[in-house]
């Protein structure tokens, strides 16, 4: 399977990565090289094989549904480019 330039642009949009126009053809080539590399899997019969969804045969542990921390708003926003009153600040979303 190979992808066209429109698909490259659509995937970049989904991934929220702005592409420069000159990058599209290059990325198309690289992505198609990787897709052709993984096409080797087409020949494998996986009928009746369960997907591996857990590395180890174990149940995910659960804990009590209780508050375990909090009151650290200054720490949470400490690395933000823009914050006000312990809130993250972003460009206006609603017109």
């Amino acid at each position, binding site marked *: 399977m190979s992808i066209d330039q429109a698909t490259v642009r659509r995937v970049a949009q989904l991934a*929220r*990565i702005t592409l420069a126009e000159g990058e599209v053809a290059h990325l198309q080539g690289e*992505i198609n090289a*990787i897709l052709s590399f993984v096409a080797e899997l087409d020949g*494998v019969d996986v009928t009746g094989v369960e997907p*591996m969804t857990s590395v*180890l045969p174990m149940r995910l542990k659960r804990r009590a549904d209780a508050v375990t921390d909090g009151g650290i708003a200054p720490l949470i926003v*400490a*690395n*933000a480019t823009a914050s006000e009153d312990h809130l993250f600040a972003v460009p206006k979303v609603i017109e």
Partner: protein
Amino acid sequence: MSDLTSLTLAEARDAVRSKRLSSRELTEAHLAAMAAARPLNAFITETPDRALAMADRADARVARGEAGPLEGLPLGIKDLYCTEGVQTTAGSRILEGFVPPYESTVSSQLWRDGAVMLGKLNLDEFAMGSSNETSYFGPAVSPWRKPGSNAGLVPGGSSGGSAAAVAARLCLAATATDTGGSIRQPAAFTGTVGIKPTYGRCSRWGVVAFASSLDQAGPITRTVRDAAIMLGSMAGHDPKDSTSVDIAVPDYEAAVGASVAGKVIGIPREYRIDGMPAEIDALWAEGIAWLKAAGARVVDIALPHTKYALPAYYIVAPAEASSNLARYDGVRYGLRVPGRDIAEMYGNTRAAGFGAEVRRRIMIGTYVLSAGYYDAYYLKAQKIRTLVRRDFETAFADGVDAILTPATPSAAFGLGEKGGDDPIAMYLNDAFTVTVNMAGLPGLSVPAGLSADKLPLGLQLIGRPFEEETLFALAEVIARSAPAIDLPSAWWSATAPAAHR
């Protein structure tokens, strides 16, 4: 003790514990070596003030008779581990200047046990790479060179800074992480020991995520014993990581030097790949002979789905990465590049903040997870994973205790030699290591000899889940049988003495 940086971790531990050596002296020697080795670009951030303060506290604990297992021992930390109050970049522009307000569980266990932090080690961006060349902070350089050549070699990746720093005696040991071979391949390239433990053995909490079902923490060291000591402090159950396993941590160091008589070693024919250099095959044969001489029994085994592990990995890992890296949007931390609206801000931030290899993998991952392709790619790859793991389970059920393979298909290559326009050439470096991540098993790389170009080569031991002790025992046999590997003189340093073993 004239050359404190040439001590092994175990030797330094014993000297500090018995008060023959202070942590202050040991730490100062390593800080000097680190400062003199900047041409290697092994560290992204140096933390000398913190190191000396930690060393003084360690010396005070030794004086009070409260020495921990790693008391006063200077270590390097891969810059993928979050360190409280110290910049953590993951080798990426998008995290430049990020100062975590918390400490990763694994590094906190090292400090609990008395270790000293020298600084944060270089790596491929978000651990995506096999040569350390995708780092935003420039490539780490191997201390190794071909005799008579000044050409720079890669230390491997993604834990290239860890491997270079340990090999060049800038730290006694280092933390690293391994998603497809990122501990074992750089260890093999630099003549060091690296172990990726069983998935779940070490907590992933506070380690910047790449591919969560594959990522695992582990050490890079100069000896097998040192790796066992490090893993003993790094491993253990952590309620903050739901995939962390609640099994007691054994005394790994006790396994070093244990008898391997009667152990059954599997040799998988599928690892004898087309175009493999004869010297790799010869090294493998030597490793088999050394283990036989130590009383192990060697049997041929089949792991028929081996060749599908790498292509399946390049679906699973990018898919998980595209999900994990969605958090870098310029809002809560890291780089922000403005745009006309919030969507353009996201796009501009991620375009500028991520390097080419990371963008490529996010794109692949986004594609294989997108509507209509999920079953054909991701679900299929997860089924292949079941088949890869089943191969190993069959071998273990047939009585195999561990599996011996080459660690890498070649010795270290030159800076700028691979990658570029052909990502697959770089990916093939992980052909022998990636199966282990796909199956969640422990794997260890141990130096076993030199190539025709006098560069280190490693052998890999693969074990049953949670049987790291078997790997330490077998690796020690190989390490004792292999010829001594002497690092070239310290060309990178105007002041440090030549390193000898």
